[in-house]
């Protein structure tokens, strides 16, 4: 593999754009626009098409990172963005009312893609809520018949984002070995 396309999805405000900005070697491409609904209480802008960033791994492989819009009304973009993708990172915002239900929503909507690829779950905004526990995330994944790595991450930290990407690539390499 010389070029890898990875997708980052998750709820609005989970940190998809921030994660890509934290790790991209080039200025990230963004499609932010003003929020006009309830989300405006939390953030001024939201991604409506995609984010894009790129990085080079130690072995020279290029990783292209595509961030999706979070809202379900942009589901058509999810289907476009996963085309040619090799792995998925799902960011779950623990400050939201029901993070496990949020995880369910992405597992359901990306089911076809998940079926053919690897997934890593990043649990964000832990500083605002210590629940659900990581065990509860693993149990929920198990209920879906899935075993994926789950990490508590601060997406502002390059090392945390790098950890998720490394884990995802290891998962993919293991699956193809």
């Amino acid at each position, binding site marked *: 593999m010389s070029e890898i396309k990875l997708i980052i999805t998750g709820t609005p405000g989970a940190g998809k754009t921030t994660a890509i900005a934290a790790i991209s070697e080039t200025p990230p*491409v*963004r*499609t*932010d*626009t*003003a*929020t*006009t*609904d*309830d*989300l405006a209480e939390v953030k001024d802008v*939201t991604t*409506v*098409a*995609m984010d894009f960033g790129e990085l080079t791994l130690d072995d020279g492989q290029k990783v292209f990172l595509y961030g999706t*819009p979070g*809202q379900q*009304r*942009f589901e*058509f*973009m999810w289907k476009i963005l996963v085309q040619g993708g090799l792995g998925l990172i799902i960011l779950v915002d623990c400050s939201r009312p029901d993070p496990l239900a949020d995880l369910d929503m992405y597992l359901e909507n990306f089911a076809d893609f998940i079926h053919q690829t690897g997934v890593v779950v990043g649990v964000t905004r832990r500083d605002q809520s210590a629940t659900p526990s990581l065990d509860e995330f693993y149990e929920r994944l198990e209920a879906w018949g899935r075993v994926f790595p789950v990490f508590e991450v601060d997406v502002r930290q390059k090392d945390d984002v790098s950890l998720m990407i490394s884990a995802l690539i290891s998962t993919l390499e293991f699956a193809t070995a």
Partner: protein
Amino acid sequence: MSQLKISENGERFCQDVFDTMMQQSDAVYGVLISTVDGHDVTRKFKRDMPSAKLAAMFSSVLALGETIAREADQALCRYVIVENSDGYILTLKLKEKLVLSVIATTDANLGILHSICRSAADKLSKNLR
């Protein structure tokens, strides 16, 4: 969910503008105002079309147009035009937080369509707060 709404008077004004656009060109069969983040605000369709889905798509396509313009070192994306085998779709920003999209058949002359859109956008921008 609370969404951007226009007043009854605003709605009437928009419908009048949409009617005028459709009178100016028979080819125009859909006009939609949506928010920049993809919510349907008001519309006039002569055919059945999924307005909520289109509103989200117009938001994406306009944001991509603006982003592509920036990446190509060009300023201010005025329109995004989707030219298809059986029609045109024009999307442009309306004030700060709204998007105007016009859907027409190939019977429309693209130049005329531009002109109709620009004129409608000017009227709407002046009257919508």
